[in-house]
């Protein structure tokens, strides 16, 4: 079976890689190819075309696809808090509440889910688009380093660690805006499959989910940290080990938000809010019955 990830191998896929490398899939009688994602790869399309049986997709992708009739369901929610945050320099940019975004220059990837999240934040705090300056961002952080942009979007468990380290070396203070803490709970990556898989091969789906969640729990367990990092570094040779250690720690906080919380729990309220945000911004052609998308298996 093929399991298509959302992005390239990085810390956000550590549990997927761990489940494979440590034999969780094999112990559950499954042979799974964990395939990296990327900008031109869409797990949802691969599921429908039969090129993959399981995949990882962000909630906005899932909702768009469902609104267009894609026969998909959500099996588990990887991040309990969306890793997308905005970095800023507190000594240059005063920020203590959502209203403080007014009058600021804010980086945004037009068309990306950060645009949807930002627009939801602006709407929530009654800020018109004319009251902020939206700056189109790409991979080059120079405009933020140079202070031309006040807030820059990044993933807290990935780029934030690297950028934060650079700013620390330069002796600059930095902080993050968390949309979740400002009341916009926009779901990030989730594990998905097709309705057909659930209906026709429920046992396979159960075993896959069991193996995957076991893998993730172990990978996030501090007792297995060394092993998890080794597994990740074998797949992602570009990121230095010291960075990966920090990234893993942040990932743990975003995925296991409460002590004793079950990994992979689906948060229906957050999904509902995500759907409302997307509908309010006309990002979906039709409303979606969120509840019918979320499938819960007893583990």
């Amino acid at each position, binding site marked *: 079976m093929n399991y298509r990830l959302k992005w390239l191998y990085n810390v956000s896929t550590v549990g997927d890689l761990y489940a494979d490398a440590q034999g969780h899939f094999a112990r559950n009688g499954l042979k799974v190819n964990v395939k990296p994602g990327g900008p031109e790869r869409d797990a949802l399309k691969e599921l429908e075309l039969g090129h993959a049986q399981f995949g990882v997709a962000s909630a906005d992708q899932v909702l768009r696809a469902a609104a267009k*009739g*894609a026969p998909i369901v959500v099996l588990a929610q990887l991040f309990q808090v969306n890793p997308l945050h905005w970095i800023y320099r507190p000594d240059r940019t005063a920020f203590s509440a959502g209203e403080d975004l007014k009058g600021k220059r804010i980086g945004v990837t037009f068309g990306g889910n950060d645009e949807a999240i930002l627009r939801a934040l602006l709407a929530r705090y009654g800020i018109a688009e004319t009251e902020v300056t939206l700056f*189109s961002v*790409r991979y080059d952080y120079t405009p933020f380093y140079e202070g031309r942009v006040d807030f820059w979007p990044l993933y807290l468990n990935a780029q934030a660690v690297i950028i934060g380290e650079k700013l620390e070396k330069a002796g600059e203070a930095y902080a993050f805006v968390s949309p979740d803490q400002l009341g916009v709970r926009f779901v990030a990556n989730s594990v998905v499959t097709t309705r057909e898989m659930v209906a026709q091969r429920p046992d396979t789906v159960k075993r896959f989910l069991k193996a995957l969640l076991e893998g993730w729990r172990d990978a996030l367990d501090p007792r297995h940290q060394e092993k998890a990092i080794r597994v990740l570094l074998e797949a992602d040779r570009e990121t230095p080990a010291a960075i990966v250690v920090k990234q893993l720690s942040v990932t743990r906080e975003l995925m296991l938000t409460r002590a004793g919380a079950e990994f992979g729990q689906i948060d229906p309220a957050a999904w509902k809010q995500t759907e409302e945000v997307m509908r309010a911004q006309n990002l979906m052609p039709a409303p979606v019955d969120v509840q019918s998308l979320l499938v819960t298996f007893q583990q």
Partner: protein
Amino acid sequence: MLHRRIYQFLIIYGLGLGLLLVLKYSLNLSDYVIPGPDEIGRTGRTYAGPYFLAVLNTLGVAILGHILSICLATIVAVIGRLTAWIGSFIRTAAFNIQAYPIVAVAPIIFILLGDGLPSRLLIAAMICYFPLLLSFIGVFSEPVREIEHFYESTGRLTWRLQIKIRAFENIQKLTTVIVGSATMAMVGTIVAEFIAATAGIGYSIRIALYQSDLAKILVALFLIGVGTSLYLVSLEWIGNALQSRLKRA
């Protein structure tokens, strides 16, 4: 000529679209994977206006980039035709620069020049100048002996005259390669916009890809095809007019 180009494009586009729809209905795929005719039509009505303006924006940059690359290729070919060390150096440098994939060079260009017009222009020029350069070097390095001999023997052959003779004798070849490279100029501009610009149809396609919206991409492709066809026809017309004028002269 215009009629033929557009007609041919519409046939190719129609065939491609038809194939997608056959796939969609035969494999029972949702509108998320391949949009249906309704959605394509609806998207077309909504986005034809802004996308048309974006294509014009891209086309404008592509034309400028194309002109830039023609100038660049002419200069390099004129210098490169020299047998001296400098000619050899210029030829080698030009070939080496082209050997780097543009996606690897583009981030450096964007960091140095920002994500505005200069970067788009430079990348468009870089992508389409190599075929121009190859032909131009070929044309300007190949002596037209029967004509040049006469001027050489009378001591009136200057380098300017030599270039003029060689260009005139190969005008059809030069026109063909200039028309051919126009498509690459358009592709180069779209690639540049896709990578880092904040305007043009390449940027619109990038946003559509973020949203997994194939209907928008199909509308964009249609308009790009029409825009490119119009540009190619204009170039062919200019080339024909130039050739006729030179023949009359």
